[in-house]
């Protein structure tokens, strides 16, 4: 009896979850629905609240009548969780989240014919594998950039040239050890940073891609992270907390986003950033449409807006990222300039190892350690295992 009941409950739940989501793409854009909800990284959707100069929402709302609400997510895992939970239209997903959402049927294909500015998108991004599966597009490129090494200019007389300052104990130019004064990202994807470092310093491991690691390569990366745990007093998972820690906790070096560097510099904190010799991991974010989006028309309007407006230009200044529309660097519709784009890494596209989800059946190796092991093992590393 009890068994039957549980089975009944379970099957009704399953039925409910299967019933959701059709995969047909839209064929035309209708009237806006008056609302639009977006899951985004911190600093990605600004309406002038932090700095009145950076506002690319108000104009959109005025033009389309679609009122934008933003839910900030701090990690890719959180984005996937929010989209699985539902109730959102768009998500600015990085490559380590996008494929998982496509596989989970949480996002729907995009009809690029409905986005007039699609042609302006950087050719290197148009068919990028993190949003294009079997030739079907599941999103519109938003912004990309590197994970830079942020450092305190008082602790470092010269810009560090290697990620070693966050992985290995050294004495900095202010005469003190880096122990306790460096941070690392509180997300399993940080294992790739370790793998990237090893790729450079231990070539005999044979790492070809920091997201595709065999068991041995993976173990080596974890060992490096365990060594890093001795140096890190607290991991950062939120841009603003990291900003706080650099101000109030005496942090001097960490993997970071240009966004934090910009904000800290704006507050006259003595920091700078660099892409060290090992190269960097990075993110290439795609605006993806939820399979059950309640406001698809507004969503399409936004995807056009994000490509055609000053958003690409201003956001790339604000966040320190590279626009997906190269012309945004030069056409003067926003604040960005060619120099700015170059500084943010426009030319380094090929050196950046963009975030993607590690899977067991990987291309470069026979069998790789899948993402869920990254998740649990990284919790273990932070916990001291």
């Amino acid at each position: 009896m009890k068994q039957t009941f549980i089975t009944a409950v379970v099957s009704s739940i399953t039925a409910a979850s299967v019933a959701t989501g059709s995969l047909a793409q839209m064929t035309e854009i209708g009237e806006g629905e008056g609302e639009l909800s977006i899951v985004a990284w911190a600093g990605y959707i600004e309406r002038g609240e932090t700095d009145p100069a950076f506002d690319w929402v108000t104009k959109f709302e005025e033009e389309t009548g679609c009122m934008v609400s933003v839910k900030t997510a701090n990690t890719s895992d959180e984005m996937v969780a929010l989209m699985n939970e539902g109730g959102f239209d768009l998500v600015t997903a990085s490559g380590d989240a996008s494929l998982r959402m496509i596989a989970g049927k949480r996002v729907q294909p995009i009809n690029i014919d409905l986005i007039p500015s699609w042609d302006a998108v950087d050719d290197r991004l148009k068919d990028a594998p993190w949003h294009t599966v079997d030739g079907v597009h599941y999103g519109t490129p938003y912004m990309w950039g590197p994970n830079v090494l942020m450092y305190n200019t008082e602790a470092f007389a010269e810009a560090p040239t290697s990620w070693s300052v966050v992985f290995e104990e050294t004495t900095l130019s202010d005469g003190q050890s880096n122990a306790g004064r460096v941070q690392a990202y509180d997300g399993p994807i940080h294992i790739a940073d370790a793998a990237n470092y090893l790729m450079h310093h231990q070539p005999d491991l044979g790492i070809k891609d920091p997201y595709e690691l065999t068991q041995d390569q993976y173990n080596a990366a974890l060992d490096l992270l365990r060594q890093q745990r001795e140096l890190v007093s607290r991991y950062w998972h939120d841009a603003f907390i990291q900003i706080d820690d650099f101000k109030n906790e005496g942090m001097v070096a960490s993997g970071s986003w240009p966004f934090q560097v910009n904000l800290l510099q704006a507050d006259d904190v003595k920091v700078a950033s660099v892409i060290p010799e090992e190269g960097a991991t990075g993110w290439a974010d795609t605006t993806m449409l939820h399979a059950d989006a309640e406001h698809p028309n507004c969503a399409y309007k936004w995807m056009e807006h994000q490509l055609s407006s000053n958003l690409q230009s201003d956001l790339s200044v604000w966040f320190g990222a590279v626009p997906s529309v190269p012309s945004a660097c030069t056409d003067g519709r926003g604040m960005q300039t060619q120099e700015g784009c170059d500084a943010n890494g426009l030319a380094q596209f090929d050196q950046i190892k963009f975030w993607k989800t590690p899977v067991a059946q990987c291309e470069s190796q026979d069998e790789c350690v899948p993402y869920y092991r990254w998740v649990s093992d990284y919790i273990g590393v932070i916990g001291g295992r």
Partner: protein
Amino acid sequence: MLSDRAPLSLKIAAAAGLLFLHLPILLIFAYAFTTEEKSFAWPPPGLTLKWFAVTWNRPDVWEALSLSVKVASISTVIAMFLGTLCAAAVSRTRFFGRETVSLLVILPIALPGVVTGIALRSAFSIADIPFSTWTIILGHATFCVVIVYNNAVARFRRTSGSLIEASMDLGANMFQTLRHVILPNIATALVVGGMLAFALSFDEVIVTTFTAGQQQTLPIWMLEELVRPRERPVTNVVAMVVVLVTMLPILGAYYLTRGTDQVAGQGK
């Protein structure tokens, strides 16, 4: 035998303990007036009142505050209703399962908030209930019941059972008895329970994060500002105001229960 005068060591220990409890809160008051915007610099480089004006003009603060007040008010009313009924049943009659009922009432507060929170969230997701103000209220009312219940049970126990019999003996039916005898006698206990429930709901954050969806109550707003500071001085001001606002019902509850043996904070 212990003398009537406290030993010096005890005095020191008690005073140190109380200082430990109070200094951090007083600190927040000082920070609300600081001119320093960016860091935690201490002592404050200067004092200003400007942040009160800035806070006053922040719509998000007002929205969060009004949501908090709304949630706390409705939750309190529900909790007062349920808690009083439950207290009346448990204290008036002995029935099978009485212990179970009191355990059921206490459970939402005896188990960690994170358990209550995620349990409610799972239930909402299984039952396909979208997040709204009402899902917050559902959670808050659930753990506020025990506060009202505790206060009401204590009062019912102290109230002689023969009062109700006397009223019925004098011709009043159950509803007249309720109106003329029971309610006037438990009124202060209910008001106190209600005030404490309001204060508890107003300050709750752990369960709320799981049941709130995209809405922000004031504590959620505070939490958001703690981890994602935008204008730290505004947070300082709100923090001070929140402390002062929660103090009002607590002081009220204290003055109403003064001279009785009830301890107002029990069961928070």
